[in-house]
């Protein structure tokens, strides 16, 4: 039972990888494809540092055999980051000092993007609930919550502008 070729769509681009059975999406992204925003944290689904979007929904890539995303759309922080500058959520994290060591930040931003996609004006409690699976050991979470609130406000005021 040897390796298999798996094809999926990564950040809008089709990729093909050769993998041994049950190689995790996390390992494929980070070690085969060089997407280093995807951290190898606990490998237990407990820390959230490997969070990616699969078909737009956050999942723990460390718990996901890559075979299970065959043909699907996978989004990492790399795809969220525009070619020039920063995404609005990234900008908000920067303005609110929402990271210190930065290890949890890719997962936090990926979850924030998914949350704001579902719910453009989340309440504080909804933000807190969304981050229940993402551990940050530096910031105490408050600047992260403030950043998401800030990004939601920035989107709302932009949407309110005429033309």
């Amino acid at each position, binding site marked *: *039972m040897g390796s298999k070729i798996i094809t999926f769509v990564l950040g809008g681009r089709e990729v093909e990888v050769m993998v*041994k*059975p*049950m*190689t*995790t999406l996390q390992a494929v992204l980070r070690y085969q494809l060089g997407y280093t925003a995807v951290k190898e944290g606990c*490998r*237990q*689904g*407990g820390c*959230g540092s490997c*969070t990616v979007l*699969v078909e737009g*929904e*956050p*999942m*723990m890539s*460390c*718990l*996901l*055999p890559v*075979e*299970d995303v065959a043909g699907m759309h996978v989004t990492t922080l790399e795809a969220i980051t525009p070619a020039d500058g920063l995404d609005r959520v990234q900008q908000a994290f920067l303005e609110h000092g929402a990271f210190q060591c930065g290890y949890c930040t890719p997962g936090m931003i990926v*979850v924030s993007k998914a949350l704001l996609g579902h719910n453009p004006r989340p309440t504080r409690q909804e933000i*807190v*609930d*969304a981050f*229940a*699976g*993402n551990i940050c050991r530096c910031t105490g979470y408050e600047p992260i919550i403030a950043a998401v609130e800030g990004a939601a406000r920035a989107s709302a005021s932009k949407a309110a502008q005429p033309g």
Partner: protein
Amino acid sequence: MTVLEYLVPRSLPEAIGLLERHGPELLVMAGGTVAMPLINEGISLPERVMSLRSAGLTSIEQRGDVLSIGAAATLTQLVAQDGVALLSEAARNTASWSIRNMGTVGGNLFTPPPGGDVAVALLALDARVRLSGPHGERVLPLADFYTGFMTNALAADELLVEIYVPTAVGETAFIKFGRKHANTPAVVTVAIALQRRDGRISAARIALGAAGPHPIRAARAEAAIVGSALESGVIERAADTAAGECRPFRDAIATEWYRRRMVGVFVRRALEKVVEQEQDDVGEGE
């Protein structure tokens, strides 16, 4: 990584065929949120793993007065359904968003305590499970599915494929008590479903999680409230009875002594919650 083969059947018959061919050594996995951490750590070393994620078992639909839940429906789907409020509440209180997007309702029934909060709600709701194998199917009450710590009534060639929940649930309450508010193993989980006739409890189910080798019913506490109008003395007695009859365990989360005490506290609070909800309903009706 020692896995030789990862099998991803596209239908239930294909899945049953693969299980029959490979036998009990085949590790059956759905969302992977319990199995994958063990595989990643090298604690579990299966040679062959079968995923049920793509086997067409993911629908949740109401058929008459029964909610039919595919075993591989995710906990996120369970949060979203509006047929049975107790199930949404239990699912919302389980794990984290990313894990709920992966973890399945069927998988929750195989999650060892103190995990498996949805299973506690399903037990309170008198859910039944459909088991399917090469020689046919059978439906069991969930209460008969559990046989011990991480053991169950599944035959070696059977899969748990669907869960049936009656939607006429009566009054319900769910409380999960953990060491933090979210994404945490339970100290104790309590799910209650009660029927009332002429103001008196006519049927009661009190299910406890992290208070035994699998989700259990507090049968003596249930008997203590049937026939009553949930007077405060009755609630106190039922809570003490539940604390006495449960079979808690010690782990990194809590001691056996503490869990037993908390069973008493949270059975009482869950019953008080039912009373409060009923009073609110009466108040709104006036």
